[in-house]
């Protein structure tokens, strides 16, 4: 039995720091770094505890167990996502000291950034620990509003336009989700995942509810064709914010989607639904990759790559939940999807941070601007290349582990079309990442000069990219953790 403080800290510490940052902006950086540090330590201990004991940890808030109250629960999936969020969050905040740190005078951006970023991280952690469908909604709103404000932070017309478009998608996504949650409560008299799973049956209201939730969450995860808000939003934001927006924010709605179909309503996803989600994921992979290939700006390449990489997540539904018979490879497909979510998060955060550092050094992020930057910033360039290895799914990275698991499942179950999509996605990633890599590593123009940037802006992305690779090296560990606390139904896929 772990101490409740471990479950509370990842949520409460960033919230407390956010409140402090609002009231006392001078202390914002110190409060933020220590709070996210606390969250990181707590999630690390949670991961170790979950691995050691092989069971999840739970806490009924206020001593009121569901259905009356809300429970926090950390199973293997929660623990992994928590750890990833805190790792990325801490890295991002360390870098953010540069553009947003206290400069002796309070500025609009410097004041707003810290509470927004901290609330964003707290909201993520709250979602990863929650088991309650309405609590998910409040967490999603906290997440969306802080993310939207971060997108607009730059203050330029394009950024505000992107933020507004993002907000519209996010609002309607949340409402559709809430409508589904309301119908589930009306049907089952509870909002707790476990209690719904215990009494769930296939009927009209349940399917409408789940369909509405899925549509809303897919829009928030930027699944093709509901991705229109993502590229402009992620490129309009400051680079440190883009890192969190691309790496973490869509994972929260995906996480809830996984909870809906694998934990709350196992066995209810018909082949039609999984086919639709899988197809949209596959189209996203191809479409996002092609658009990434056509971009001239580093940040836009990375943003369209996110559209493509998020597509993989949705292949989990047909691979781990399409057929009616439980098969051993379903667990592999499911785990592959989750490992992909984590390793993509780490690699994508690293890439955006690299892009931010390079933009600061080169004064722009067009491929021609950053040409030959390797001579000036070897560490950041190396970090970018390492992150690219993970996105392409090359061994021994976490991306490789994810794609290996998904491919095995696809071919073992005879779903070779999905397997082909996974393979093609890796090839396309290699193609669209080749151009920025070639540009970064090209010999620089002799009279081209770059501004110096702080070393930490290179070291942090390097560390994140290394962790993404390590995930694949230590492949057994993440695999085992992710199995902890999975219901039997999830173990066997959606049935």
């Amino acid at each position, binding site marked *: 039995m772990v101490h409740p403080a471990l479950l*509370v800290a990842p949520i409460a510490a960033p919230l407390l720091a956010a409140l402090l940052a609002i*009231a006392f902006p001078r202390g914002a950086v110190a409060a933020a770094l220590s709070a996210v540090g606390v969250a990181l330590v707590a999630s690390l201990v949670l991961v170790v505890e979950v691995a050691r004991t092989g069971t999840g940890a739970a806490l009924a*808030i*206020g001593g009121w167990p569901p259905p*009356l109250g809300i429970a926090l629960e950390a199973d293997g999936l929660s623990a992994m996502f928590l750890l990833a969020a805190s790792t990325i969050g801490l890295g991002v905040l360390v870098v953010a000291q540069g553009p947003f740190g206290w400069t002796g005078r309070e500025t609009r951006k410097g004041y*707003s950034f810290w509470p927004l970023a901290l609330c964003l991280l707290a909201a993520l952690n709250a979602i990863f620990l929650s088991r309650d469908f309405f609590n998910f909604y409040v967490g999603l709103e906290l997440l969306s509003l802080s993310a939207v404000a971060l997108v607009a932070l730059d203050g330029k017309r394009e950024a505000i336009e992107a933020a507004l478009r993002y907000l519209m998608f996010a609002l309607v996504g949340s409402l559709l989700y809430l409508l589904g949650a309301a*119908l589930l409560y009306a049907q089952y008299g509870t909002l707790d995942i476990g209690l719904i799973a215990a009494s769930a049956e296939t009927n009209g209201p349940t399917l409408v*509810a789940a369909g509405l939730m899925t549509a809303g969450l897919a829009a928030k995860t930027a699944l093709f064709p509901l991705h229109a808000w993502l590229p402009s939003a992620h490129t309009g934001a400051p680079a440190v914010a883009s890192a969190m927006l691309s790496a973490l924010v869509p994972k929260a709605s995906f996480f809830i989607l996984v909870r809906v179909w694998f934990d709350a309503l196992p066995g209810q996803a018909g082949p039609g639904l999984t086919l639709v989600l899988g197809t949209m994921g596959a189209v996203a992979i191809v479409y996002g990759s092609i658009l990434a290939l056509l971009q001239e700006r580093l940040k836009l390449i990375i943003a369209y790559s996110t559209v493509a990489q998020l597509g993989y997540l949705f292949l989990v539904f047909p691979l781990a939940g399409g057929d009616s018979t439980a098969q051993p490879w379903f667990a592999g497909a499911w785990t592959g999807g989750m490992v992909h979510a984590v390793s993509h998060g780490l690699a994508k955060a690293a890439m955006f941070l690299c892009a931010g550092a390079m933009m600061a050094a080169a004064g722009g992020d067009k491929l021609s601007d950053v040409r030959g930057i390797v001579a000036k910033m070897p560490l950041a360039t190396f970090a970018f290349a390492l992150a690219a290895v993970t996105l392409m799914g090359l061994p021994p990275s976490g991306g490789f582990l994810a794609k290996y698991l998904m491919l095995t499942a696809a071919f073992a179950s005879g779903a070779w079309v999905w397997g082909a999509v996974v393979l093609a996605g890796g090839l396309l990633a290699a193609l669209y990442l080749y151009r920025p890599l070639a540009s970064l590593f090209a010999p620089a123009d002799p009279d081209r000069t770059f501004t110096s940037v702080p070393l930490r802006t290179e070291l942090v992305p390097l560390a994140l990219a290394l962790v993404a690779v390590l995930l694949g090296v230590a492949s057994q560990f993440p695999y085992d953790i992710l199995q902890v606390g999975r219901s039997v139904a999830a173990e066997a896929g959606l049935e």
Partner: protein
Amino acid sequence: MIASGFDITVCVLLCLCALAAVTGRDTFRAIVFFIVYGLLISVAWLRIDAIDVALAEAAIGAGLTGVLLLGAFGQMGSADTMAREPRGAVLIALVAGAGIGAAVLFAVQGLPPEGAGLTAEVLAQLEASGVGNPVTAVLLNFRGYDTLLESIVLLVALIGVWSVASETGWGERPGIVHHARAGGTLQSFGRFLPAIGLVIGAYIVWAGSSGPGGAFQGGTVLAAVAILTILAGLVDAPRVTTRWLRWALVMGPGVFLGVALLGLFGGAFLVFPQAVAYPAIVAIEIVLTASIALTLVLLVLGPPREAPQ
């Protein structure tokens, strides 16, 4: 029979107001319909015995949201004109709206007619919760965690609103400068109503522990009073950099979070031991009301204004 007639009439009028608010090109008219809609929906809530929600809807839905939209309309002026509507896009919206509406309708009529939800569970634990109003018990005790997060959502929205200030506007007072004729109707309104509003707001917060009411409804009424005096040009909002303002904003969520964390010493989170539950919840409700009211005022006023030229 008569009861059904009443319910159906309310619903028909509600749908007509909604229809009028979402169609047509005249934005002002749409907002007016939206305000009437908020009024009718409060009536609907009373018919299904949800007085707490009716209060919230009357204060927020019909009240503050309408004021917010009207204020935005006043500032947008001619910028809020619509491009020509392509037929195809209207058709797609029509099909999507009708499709989802029909699916939801299908789901509602397919629900079991006897679902009592968690009423019995809430009533069984009401005594242990420390308050007499079941809705307040859910909001501040059983699901206090949601409410804690929600109070922070409000704050985040405010930081978001402030963050779109112009670069030169930081440190200024929020919103536009309101003025009114000295001694005119508007100013008299602003002098006369706050006294009544303060009493009503405080009463609703206080009533919330035993009957309908509570921090959000009462806080909204108090916010409405403050907004009224500002619109009447009687007082100006404090600068966004004011120290007391910022501490007052975080005090509500801060005290709530602090009390919640105290429980960790006993191995729990956000617990109210029955002996102290009533005073603790009332205390939280009072500070929360103050912070909520302040946050709402600033949310409605908008980002810090441009620095004077």
